[in-house]
């Protein structure tokens, strides 16, 4: 069959067939069915409020920074200047005394030269640059349209980050000191204190720690040794980033501690899904092999810090509930599972969650009344959870002294196809029957 000529008119499929028109119309109505706009808006608002770097009403609308080829990193350190297209090295002098302080509360274009922001951050705007200052109750943001900016940022609260945004990237600083050189063909970063995240298109490429150096011309997913002209630091090393298959081999060989370090190396230097998986696998290793639930929870916390809303967030949240339960942090586990149940993933695995909740209420809180309610909501689940829920509910009814209901529940359980706890249910029925 010959291909159509470009521009050839194709009648719409719905025009060809009344049956198809009717089918598409009916399908369209169903596609638009079941939309909870109010709930969706509430969740969107929470997401926007919880992740300030994504907050849209502070989004910038500036032209691209010169020479930002891949990962854009904003560097500011005491006395350092931005790199320039002519590759001038970063200076180390401390900027001169500030000449003006813009008023807070209203966005304003920062003047050329040094300025002190209301929080004490020192900004030096180079000639020809366009930098807008946008404070808010969520933190300070600078919107860079073009040019170069030098900053000495005062220590910020964790929930009030100092943010710099460009059209393609966003950077958050908490009082870190680092320096960046940006040329037409590369971006280089050296971190003196703290850590700096290198992002491209909202995806974390790598985290560069104190004493480490990163270049866009090298492996973008891993920092390397500090540049030779800088004094060596304890954390500086040329890393050979392992792969996850190697870590899995170590697990199979029983070399659990080596496997732990292997995953940790990937997690710290990894990016994207590889980095996410490394943190998650580390948590599982600590939980299941090393018997370290607290360490596992720490790995999950680090995952959430580095990858809020990441691809594995649903699995991480499920694991968090499990770990909190194992650690005896019952109320936290119940709170986390309750939050998770409001998400799509939580709803998809609600019986698993409700079983965890029910068991915690029954065994830790000694509250079979609440547990029974959790089990009841899963009895009809066709998978294995329904079987467990039905038997657990019958047992709770018995503990609560609701004998008649317990007997009915055990009998209903035995009426299920292939009940796994049939022997146990029969014994309880015998004990309860007059």
């Amino acid at each position, binding site marked *: *069959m*010959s*291909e*159509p*000529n*470009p*521009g*050839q*008119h*194709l*009648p*719409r*499929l*719905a*025009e*060809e*067939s009344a*049956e*198809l*028109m009717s*089918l*598409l*119309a*009916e*399908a*369209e*109505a*169903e*596609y*638009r069915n079941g*939309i909870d*706009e109010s709930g*969706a*808006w509430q*969740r*969107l608002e929470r*997401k*926007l409020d919880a992740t300030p770097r994504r907050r*849209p*009403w502070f*989004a*910038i*609308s500036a032209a691209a920074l010169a020479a930002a080829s891949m990962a854009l990193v904003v560097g500011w350190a005491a006395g350092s200047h931005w790199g320039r297209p002519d590759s001038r090295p970063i200076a180390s002098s401390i900027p001169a005394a500030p000449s003006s302080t813009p008023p807070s509360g209203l966005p304003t274009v920062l003047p050329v030269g040094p300025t002190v922001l209301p929080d004490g951050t020192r900004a030096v705007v180079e000639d020809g640059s366009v930098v807008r200052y946008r404070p808010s109750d969520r933190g300070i943001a600078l919107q860079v349209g073009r040019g170069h900016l030098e900053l000495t940022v005062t220590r910020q609260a964790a929930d009030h980050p100092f943010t710099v945004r460009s*059209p393609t990237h966003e950077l958050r600083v908490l009082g870190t000191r680092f320096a960046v050189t940006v040329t037409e063909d590369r971006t280089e970063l050296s971190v003196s204190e703290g850590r700096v995240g290198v992002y491209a298109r909202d995806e974390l490429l790598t985290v560069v720690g104190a004493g480490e150096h990163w270049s866009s011309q090298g492996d973008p997913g891993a920092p390397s040794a500090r540049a030779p002209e800088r004094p060596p630091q304890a954390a500086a090393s040329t890393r050979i980033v392992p792969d996850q298959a190697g870590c899995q081999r170590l697990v199979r060989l029983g070399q659990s501690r080596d496997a732990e370090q292997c995953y940790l190396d990937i997690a710290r230097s990894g990016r994207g*899904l590889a980095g996410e*998986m490394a943190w998650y696998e580390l948590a599982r290793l600590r939980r299941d092999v090393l018997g370290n639930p607290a360490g596992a929870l720490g790995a999950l916390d680090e995952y959430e810090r580095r990858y809020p*809303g990441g*691809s*594995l967030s649903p*699995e991480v949240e499920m694991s968090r509930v499990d770990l909190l339960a194992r650690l005896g942090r019952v109320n936290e586990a119940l709170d986390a599972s309750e939050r998770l149940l409001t*998400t*799509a993933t939580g*709803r*998809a695995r609600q019986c698993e969650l409700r079983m965890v909740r029910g068991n915690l209420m029954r065994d830790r809180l000694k509250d079979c009344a609440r547990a029974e309610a959790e089990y009841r909501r899963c009895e009809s689940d*066709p*998978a*294995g*959870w329904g*079987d467990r829920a039905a038997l657990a509910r019958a047992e709770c009814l018995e503990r609560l002294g609701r004998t008649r209901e317990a007997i009915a529940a055990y009998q209903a359980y035995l009426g299920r196809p292939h009940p*796994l706890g049939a022997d146990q249910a029969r014994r309880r029925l015998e004990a309860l029957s007059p």
Partner: protein
Amino acid sequence: MKVATQSDSNTTERSSPLSSPVATTLEDSLVVGCVAGDREAWRALHRRYLPVAVAFLRKLGTPETELDDVCQDVFVELFRYLPRFRGQADFKSWLYRLCATQARRTRTRSRLLRAVRERMEKERQLTTSVPPSTMTDTTARQLVSRALDALRDDERLALVLYEVEGLAAKQIAEIAGCPEATVWRRLHYARRTFKQALGLPEADAAG
């Protein structure tokens, strides 16, 4: 559902309330309000276009379990870049483009995650297997969705935008980021596959 009212579909979008002059003005007002930081304007924009986004993402095959997250990502992107959008293009086309991008990312991520989760699932302490679902439901949506599932992603996007959303090929080309001739080619093969999947006869060699 919108129905074609013009014979020349090459250049004319189907008529719909949202393409009327009055609606355009309302759209501009909302955009202006949003750019000014008016939260009520954001809410109104969300209320207006969430059904459009949800329906479109469903047609592109976004799983229900991920639909909420993908929609949120779409609107986060929309709100972020709205100041740059103002008046430069058809707003709905821009929304379609954002949805198509997020749907594509979701599919890529889903393929990777599926492999991960299959491995995780084997290690979960579930002693009984989940019985297979019985496909007894044959709603219109499911019939259409199954037919759409038979298409390649790029063909699916073209067909949904052309046949269901009523866009012109030129608009589809902008959304998909390809030449208009490519859109026609994709539509040609998509329509054939779609009709075969529905068990409908092909009208003629050109259809």
